[in-house]
């Protein structure tokens, strides 16, 4: 009888321990996730590099195989503090919403970072990843909506160019350099910061232009003032002779200057460049020009530049933004 009781007690204890082993962690996490301590609500954003999104859906080991995580559009309320809980499902990311005053926050896989945000102005504020995290990196952007009442205004957030850019189909074999450059410009993600047809416009606070530079006027900046000038340089490039070795090109006016400028641009694309601060005392601009030399060959960079040189020289207005008057508290341990 005593043995039977001991047997039952042991079996019961094991069953309870097994249930607890699963249930307790889930319950602890659920209560933590949904806690509204001190009236602060929590929004969890997880970077998913494979899809190029920050999502507000739960990304767990069991769901990470999904390919359709929703791009998050967190809704905050003016004057109300919200906890943003940032996580990564794969690689290192950095979350930045410069117009909300959120400087790039590094988010490492398997670690969470929490910040408190108290917006003081309504509007839609762009966020993006500022660490080149992988092929779809440049798609990791979206908008935080700050509503005066706490309810979203219902209008869709602005659309940025280059959705799913890394899936852009390759041009047919035999396509010329310009067509290939147009494809690379999109497929590599240049379009996401520099815009369709090089229109620029993505905010980059405290950089010299406050936005990512437009590229539609690259021809003019290369001293190619007419389409014929640009075509003449493209012909030199298409000849296959390395530009460095070309000393004369009668069809290209101001060739030495054009050549120097072109090679400097190519070098900039290859080696990247840190954005200069407009206000040297201000925060560092969140977006820098990545170094593409490790990813693109010289021929591919030339193809992209060829495409850009064929764009019209009409100026596209840049959207000037300034850092928003919002308060952000740092990482909560």
């Amino acid at each position, binding site marked *: 009888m005593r043995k039977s009781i001991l047997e039952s007690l042991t079996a019961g204890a094991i069953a309870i321990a097994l249930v607890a082993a699963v249930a307790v*962690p889930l319950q602890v996490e659920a209560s933590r996730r949904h806690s509204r301590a001190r009236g602060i609500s929590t929004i969890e954003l997880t970077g998913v590099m494979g899809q190029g999104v920050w999502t507000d859906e739960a990304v767990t*080991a069991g769901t990470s195989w999904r390919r359709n995580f929703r791009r998050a559009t967190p809704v905050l309320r003016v004057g109300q503090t919200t906890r943003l809980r940032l996580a990564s499902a794969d690689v290192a990311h950095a979350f930045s919403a410069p117009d909300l005053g959120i400087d790039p926050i590094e988010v490492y896989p398997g*670690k969470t970072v929490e910040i408190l945000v108290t917006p003081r102005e309504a509007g839609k504020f762009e966020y993006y990843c500022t660490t080149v995290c992988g092929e779809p990196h440049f798609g990791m952007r979206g908008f935080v909506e700050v509503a005066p009442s706490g309810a979203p205004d219902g209008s869709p957030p602005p659309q940025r160019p280059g959705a799913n850019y890394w899936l852009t189909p390759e041009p047919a074999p035999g396509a010329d350099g310009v067509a290939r450059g147009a494809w690379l410009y999109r497929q590599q993600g240049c379009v996401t910061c520099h815009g369709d047809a090089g229109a620029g416009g993505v905010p980059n606070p405290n950089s010299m232009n406050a936005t990512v530079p437009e590229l539609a006027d690259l021809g003019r900046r290369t001293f190619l003032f007419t389409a014929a000038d640009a075509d003449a340089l493209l012909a030199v490039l298409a000849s296959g002779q390395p530009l460095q070795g070309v000393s004369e090109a009668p069809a290209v006016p101001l060739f030495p200057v054009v050549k120097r400028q072109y090679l400097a641009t190519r070098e900039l694309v290859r080696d990247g460049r840190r954005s200069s601060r407009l206000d040297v005392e201000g925060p560092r601009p969140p977006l820098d020009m990545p170094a593409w030399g490790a990813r693109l060959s010289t021929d591919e960079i030339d193809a992209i530049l060829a495409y850009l040189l064929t764009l019209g020289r009409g100026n596209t207005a840049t959207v000037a933004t300034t850092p928003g008057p919002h308060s952000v508290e740092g990482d909560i341990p």
Partner: protein
Amino acid sequence: MNAPAPCATTRTVDLLARWPRFAWLLRRRWFPLVVAVPLLVLTATFVSAGLVGTPVGNRNGLVVFVWILWWFLLIAVLVPFAARSWCGVCPVPLLGDWLQRRRVLGVTFADPRQGKEGPGTQIGRNRYRGASRRWPRRLSNLWLQNLGFLLLATFSVVLLTSPLASALAVGGMVAAATGVALLYRQRTFCRFLCPVGGFLSLYSMSSTLALRARSSSVCGDCKEKSCLAGSEQGWGCPWLEYPSRMARNNACGLCLECVKTCPHGNMSLFVRPPFAERRLEGLDEAFKAFLMLALAIAYSVVYLGPWGGLKAAANVAEAVDWRAFGLYAGGLWALALGVVPGLYLAAAWLGRRLARTPQVPARAAALAGASTLVPFGLLVWIAFSVPLVLANGSYVLAAGSDPFGWGWNLFGTAAIPWTPVVPHWTPWFQAGLLLVGQGAGLRAGWLENRELYGGRRRALLGFAPTAVLLAATALLLLALYTG
């Protein structure tokens, strides 16, 4: 030849005689359950982490604890020094055990002399629930385990990087063990199906620990045969072995039931010199040795080599490049089932020709040649596993504090950064292990061949091709490890 039973040698230590308190502990019904149950609870937690925790492999408790900590402890500590003690505390078959036995601690004793009526099936002096069928004789070998391990190994990069895949694998093992326990008797799953059990069986031959009978005459005079048939004190050997006649470690899961049931206290644990057992008894065991060596080589290339493309091809879950994965898997299977076995079998065949001994069966020559790979393969696996734990051991501290990757910090170690330990020493460790493995492998092969061929000269000729091949394999691995 296999080492004689430990009781007959002078170079063994009878642990239970030396430490009576240890003997007392091992004879309790609650041992080793007291270790296995917490491991089962931990497994349940980690499988949960594999389903709902972070998808980041090196931050998920399941991946980190199973593939870094457990694997290293298993292959580098438990197998060499404690034989199949992992099988004794393994949580995978516990649910099946309990369903079969309807007991957690106790024993269902039913004296067959008093009739066999009652629920369940009478086996010896114990009763079991479930169908309790006998496992087919033609499958009573390592072939299915070889196949299962190769299948798992094919997806190893996925298992090592995806918590979900690891959870499905561990959960699938528990489900399979439980299902098999309901259909077949006792530890049929562990003995003939568990993919891990296959290589534990092979490499436990090299272990310094062995469970044996102290005196064969006591066993010969024993009428009860409780180690086989069970008693009120314990279950008949769940591993379907006859413990008193065991001469090899292969099929002993160290569940310690025979230590509990033996009415004469004749079963004991012995410490012995390493690499004491050599003889392989079938081609299934020889192929297990070939397979394990091939996988150790392949893993060393994929995981430790500088070829990122190979790793990407193996990680089909991330790259989703089925063509590249097909090539990788095809290459792996060809290496494991064709190249390595082919080379070693050819070496044994060549040796037999050189020795001019047609009377020696080709199968025996092949088994003698493969015996070199028992100690060598174990040391190669340890050499492969050392850098993994030295380089990635710090993940264990971080994931232990936050097994789900949810931002917890249970023990204050969650923020410990990735810290490789003595990376500059790693190649030296590996080189040392390879040298030990090669020495032990040569010794094992030489002794087996000498016994097989009879004369010293014939044995030398018979073993020479295998010895050269073994040296070439060691050099290949040495070059890979040391760059």
